Every structure is written in C-alpha cells, then in structure tokens.
C-alpha cells in the first residue's frame, strides 16, 4: 500500500503532458519586470536608481524586514523604469524594469554549474547564504526560507521532508528538476540536515513520477539517513499538513505548523535553490517553469529568468491558440487567472497554463442537493457547504466556530460539487472578512 493522507482528497485528470520534456534554457528576455513583492511578507526596498547599470545576481531590492527577502537582478543591463505594473495578483505592483544589455556576454553564457558535494560552510554561514541569496519557498507559497529555517531552540526537529509531490495537474517543473538535478538536490538535503542537525530526511513523491522515485532510490542506496517514499496519487497531497500526515502519520495541530510536530517541509525546487546559493553563491534569479495547455503546440519546461513576461514564454511554445479564454499562473486547482500576458514570472510561478474555450467557463450553479460530497473530499475535515451557507448569510462568527480559517483553499469542494456551487469563493470571502473582525483576533 502506498502512503497517503486518510481523509478527503480528489483525483483530477493528471494531464502531465510535459513530463518527458527536459528543462530548456531560454535566451534572456529583452526586458525584465521584477516585482519587489514576490514573497509573503514585507515588500523589499529598492536600492537601485533609474539608468543604473546592474550585473547578474546583483541585489536590486533589499529585504524590507524579518519576513522579507532580497531580490537580485536576473540579467545584466540597465534599470529603465521604477514603476507599477500588473502582476499575477491582478493589481499593479512596484516593479524594477531592467533592459537586458545585448552586448554583455554574461547574459548569454550557458551556465552549467558543476556538482559540488563537499559542504564547506559552517551552519551559520549556510543560513546566511540562504538569507542573502533571496531564497523563498518555490512550491507556491513563497515564504522566505530563512524564516522557516530559523528554528527556536525549544522546538525539537527530527525530520526534514522534501516535497516532490507536485499534485497539481499539468505541472511538471518539479518532476523534471528531480530527474535532471537529483544529485544537486541530494546535496541540498545534506546541507539542510547539516545546518539544522536533523538526522532523518524523507523525499515524498507521488507515484505518477516513478522514474524520479527510482532515480532517488538509486542515489540514496548507501545513505541511510535519506529515505524516498512513493505516495498514492491524490490531490492535495502537496499541502504541507497532508504531506506530513501521509509520510509520518503526524497531524499538525489546528492553527499550527509542521514545526509543532517536529517536522520541516521544503519543496524540491527550494532545496535546489538552496544548493545553488550555498555551493555556488548563486542568487535566486531563475526557476523552472512548465508552460502547457491542451491546445499549446509545443508544451515545455523552461529555466526562466525572474521577471520574464508571460508572453515571451507563450511565444516560445508556439503562441496562444485561437480559442484561449483563460491563462493561469500556476496549476488548474490553485493557480491564479491572469489579466494579460505581460505579467512577469516571479519566484512563485511554477507554471503557465493556457485554457481554451471548452474548459474556461464555469457552469451555472444550482441548488445544493446536500449530497455531502464536499464534506467527503475536504482534507481538513470541514463542511464546505455549511461554510458557504454561513458566509452567504453573513454569519461570520458561526463560520469562524466551524473552523473556516483552517481551510487550505485547495478547491477540492468546488471541484466535486455536482451543483457547481462556488464553495471556495464564498469560503475565501468569509475568511477575508473574518480577518478584519475583532472577535477572530481575540480568539487567536
């Protein structure tokens, strides 16, 4: 029996059409738009001026506080604008616009960094590198990694979990990374285990990536500290809480973190970025991105410079199909629909998904038939139909008492609802209102 979490979950069509396509490196875009808020927390502070020349990897915006991160220039070029542009949130956000210098050779060098297995830095220096080189969680949450790794002394961490689940349909960037950079990822894991004094690590991978599982098993054959676990294919297994439950049978308490049960979870992409930061002093200026869609001519995986406009990537895979009606930043379950194709790729972009006419529009919703399917699939043990109802009636305190705030917004309820009810929309709305209300603050 493959491991998985026991309550809830769904199995949408996987559609991993790009899983056999190696990650290609693209020529740098002519212009990059680098938002200063690419992570959860305080936006970074711009430290460059207009017309200033910048190099690859130079810090262009400094961490704005504890929960924040440095941002580096993805290209060598000239800062042309410091202005607000649309990003994938749908709002205009402060960006640093840099025109790539076509003459600068460093922009066009094929960077293939050699594998360095020996860890030379001290524990403290490792954490400093992770802070300095702007590493944030690349699984999608973009939580600054140095904060996650700065563990209070009273917490006893005994296991590092590496999240290679990639349960979102369509996305394959992590899968390819695990195949192509497996050795580097192993070194990255060892770096973290060394820095945090953790004796055990588990790489969790869903069983639709058998070659990645085999690959890691082969590499960790003689390493008893790192285990590879095949997981049953079930969405949302990539969610931290569900993954910890699946691998260790430990349940993260309500409103708690994996830290509370002695676990720290990192995405494989983050681990690779940590490896590069620590071993090669490389800042986080590019990431693996899947560009895909059922009607896309040549769906692919790319190494993309942060700040590259989405349209550049779409042109690279054969342009937008005629009947495109929706473009997503991320996968189909949790991705955000973007307004136009000029928004930039950020540290949190794991994929660009193009959806055509047939699948783009939501069906009309009808009465709830109380089938209980939403209750059955909710991985958090909530009652989505009830939460929607309470929010609709503006009974926010009741919704709070029904644990609306613990919703992880995986969308399983909206996915299964046979009446096509917008369950998650209402739950999100309820959550956002409750955050502003007094009673919720008191109770926390």
């Amino acid at each position, binding site marked *: 029996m493959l491991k998985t979490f*026991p*309550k809830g979950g*769904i199995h*949408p069509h996987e559609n991993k059409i790009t899983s056999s396509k190696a990650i290609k490196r693209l020529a740098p875009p002519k212009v990059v738009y680098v938002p200063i808020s690419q992570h959860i927390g305080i936006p970074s502070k711009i430290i460059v001026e207009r017309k200033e020349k910048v190099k690859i990897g130079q810090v262009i915006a400094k961490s704005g506080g504890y929960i924040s991160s440095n941002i580096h220039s993805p290209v060598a070029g000239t800062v042309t604008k410091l202005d607000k542009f649309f990003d994938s949130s*749908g709002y205009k956000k402060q960006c640093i616009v840099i025109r790539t210098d076509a003459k600068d050779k460093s922009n066009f060098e094929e960077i293939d960094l050699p594998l360095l297995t020996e860890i030379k830095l001290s524990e403290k220096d490792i954490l400093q590198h992770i802070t300095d080189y702007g590493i944030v969680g690349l699984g999608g949450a973009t939580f600054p990694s140095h904060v996650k790794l700065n563990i209070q002394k009273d917490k006893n961490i005994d296991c590092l979990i590496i999240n290679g689940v990639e349960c979102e*349909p369509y996305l394959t960037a992590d899968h390819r990374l695990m195949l192509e950079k497996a050795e580097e990822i192993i070194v990255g894991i060892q770096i973290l285990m060394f820095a945090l004094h953790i004796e055990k690590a588990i790489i969790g991978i869903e069983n639709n990536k058998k070659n990645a599982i085999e690959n890691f098993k082969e590499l960790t054959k003689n390493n008893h500290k790192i285990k590879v676990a095949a997981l049953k294919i079930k969405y949302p297994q990539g969610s931290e*809480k569900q993954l910890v439950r699946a691998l260790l049978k430990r*349940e*993260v*308490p*309500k*409103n708690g973190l994996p830290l509370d049960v002695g676990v720290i979870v990192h995405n494989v992409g983050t681990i690779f970025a940590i490896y590069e930061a620590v071993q090669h002093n490389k800042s986080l200026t590019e990431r693996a991105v899947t560009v895909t869609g059922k009607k896309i001519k040549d769906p692919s995986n790319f190494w993309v410079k942060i700040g590259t406009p989405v349209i550049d990537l779409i042109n690279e895979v054969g342009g*937008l199909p005629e*009947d495109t*009606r*929706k473009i*997503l930043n*991320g996968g*189909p*379950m*949790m*991705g*955000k*629909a*973007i*307004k136009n194709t000029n928004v930039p790729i950020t540290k949190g972009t794991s994929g660009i998904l193009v*959806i055509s*006419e047939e*699948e783009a*529009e*939501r*069906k009309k919703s*009808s*009465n*709830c*038939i*109380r*089938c*209980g*399917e939403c*209750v*059955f699939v*909710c*991985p*958090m*043990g*909530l*009652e989505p*139909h009830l939460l929607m109802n309470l929010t609709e009636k503006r009974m926010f305190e009741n919704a709070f008492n029904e644990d609306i705030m*613990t919703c992880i*917004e995986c*969308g*399983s309820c*909206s*996915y299964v609802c*046979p*009446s096509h009810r917008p369950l*998650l*929309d209402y739950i*999100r709305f309820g959550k956002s209102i409750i955050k502003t209300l007094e009673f919720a603050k008191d109770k926390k």
Partner: protein
Amino acid sequence: MSKKPIIISASPHIHSDRTSKKLMYDVVIALIPAFLVSIYVFGIGAIIVTAVAVISCLIFEYLIQKYLLKAEVTISDGSALLTGILLAFNLPSNLPIWMIIVGSLVAIAVAKMSFGGLGFNIFNPALVGRVFLLISFPVQMTMWPTAIENQAKIADAVTGATPLGIIKEGLQFGETMTDLSSKIPSNLDMFIGLTGGSLGEISIIALLIGGLFLIYRKVISWHIPVTMLFTMAVFTGIFWMIDPEQYANPLFHLLSGGAILGAFFMATDLVTSPMTRKGMVIFAIGIGLITVVIRLFGAYPEGVSFAIIIMNAFVPLINKYFKPRRFGSKIKSKII
C-alpha cells in the same frame, strides 16, 4: 487571440464531470430492472401507474415554478422525474388514477416545493406522497394485485395481501409461523419478485442490481443500505431466536416489503439523508430499528416508509452533532 475576452475567475479552474442531473439520471437508470420486473408481474397496470405519477409530478413542478413562484423552471434536472418514479414504485399497481395524481401533488407541492424546492425539503417527497395516500385511502392502498395473474388486466384485478400482511394478520389470529409458512411465497419467489406488493418493491434481485450500480457509480455509499439491512437482520433475528413461532426469520424480513427498495433508493436520497458517513450510520440504524418495531408491534404490517420519514426529521440534528473530525483537532474520535 480570440475575440471573446479573457476570463478572470478564482481557482479551481477545472471541475469533475459529475453533475446533479447525472446523479439523478443514474438513479433512474438503476430503477429500470425493477421496473421491468414489475411490468412482467403486474402487466399494464405498472406502466400506467408509473406514467401517471411521473407526468403529474413533472406538471405540478412546472406549474408551481412557472405560475406560483414565478421562478426558473428546472423540471429537466431529473429530480421530479425521480420523485414520480419512486412514488409509483411505492403504490399498488391498480390504484385509481386520480389518487396517483393526488399523491403526486402532495409529494411535489407539499413535501418539496413548499420547503423551497430541490435541496431544501426535509422529508423524502415520494414517501410523503405515499404515506399521505396510505393514511387517506387505506383500503385502496392495501389492495395488492396478486402476481402474474393480473398481467393483462386494467381493472378488477385479483387482489391479495402482501407476505408481511399475511404474517401480521395470521399472528394476530393466533396462528404460528409454521401454520403460516404455507401461505407465504417461497424465499426464491420473493427474491425474484413473484409476489404481491407495491409495484417497485417486489423484486429483490432487480433492486440489488440497481443498488449495486449506484454504489459502483458512487451516487450512494454503502453505509446507509448495509447498516439499515444489518440492523433489521439483527433486531428481527433476536426476536426470531427467542420465539420462532411468533416472529418471522430475518431473511423473510429482508426479502419482504419495502426493505430493499427503502434501503437502496429511499433512505439514500441525497437531500434527506445525513452528509457524513458517521451520520449515515446513525440514520440507518434508526431506520432499521423503527421499521422492525412497526413491523413486529405496530398496527401496520410494513414500516419502512414511516421509519425513513421519522429519521428524515432527525437529519438536521444528526448533521449538527456528527460532524467530520477536523484535521488537527486533538480529540480522536473513531472515523466510520
């Protein structure tokens, strides 16, 4: 790019291909085998009763939505169709047509639309219709055409009691189970459906095929039917072991009356059954117990409809107290 604008909406952006309509039509498909058997056993009467019930349910829903509520007409969603079929399945095949229409009116207007339409009704509409008829017209509602010999008759059917009725009456007049065993159909006849009764409840095999189809299609889960039948078997089994001369055996109870139809098609009605697996089990145990109490000690020979309606009333309470265990909450309760 296409001329139509890009859509911005919140996640998730994909949806499973299940729809309420498909669920309803799956149930309709699951009822076809039982319907075919009833046509064979009761002849043209089965077709007439079903057709009248279905058509009148659809018309009443249409009229109420269009002219009374002035709302969108949703009769194509399959729910009124299903109510019609299930109502017909709970009626004798020779019931006067006007009574069927009255039953349909009660089912749709009183039990469903007055609560707010699909999804808001507390009680199973088809059963409310049936129980209303049973109380209002007890004579016609308990004249069951006998099997096979009425195939070609439209009126003046030869009637007889159901197996449950025979037992009830016999025991009241002091007969023992041994005396009665010759008067009731064999287990095999009841299993196939060669017996008197409501037109859709008679064939156990046909209903089981439909029920398993629904479980296979994940329209219903096994929790309600299995728990309900198990409870009935255990409860009747206890009495049977105490005194086999005064109480029928559990197998007879499962094969007779509306036990199987009720367990797979009536109690599992999505709208009027609990939402959690835990709740479903409690609900089904309640139905099983009440059914047996009515069958053994009540005035009516059969109690499935009453039991389901009574337990329907408890569903909001069950939903309130048998919630799924929240992820990360400390109290560990057994997950059923």
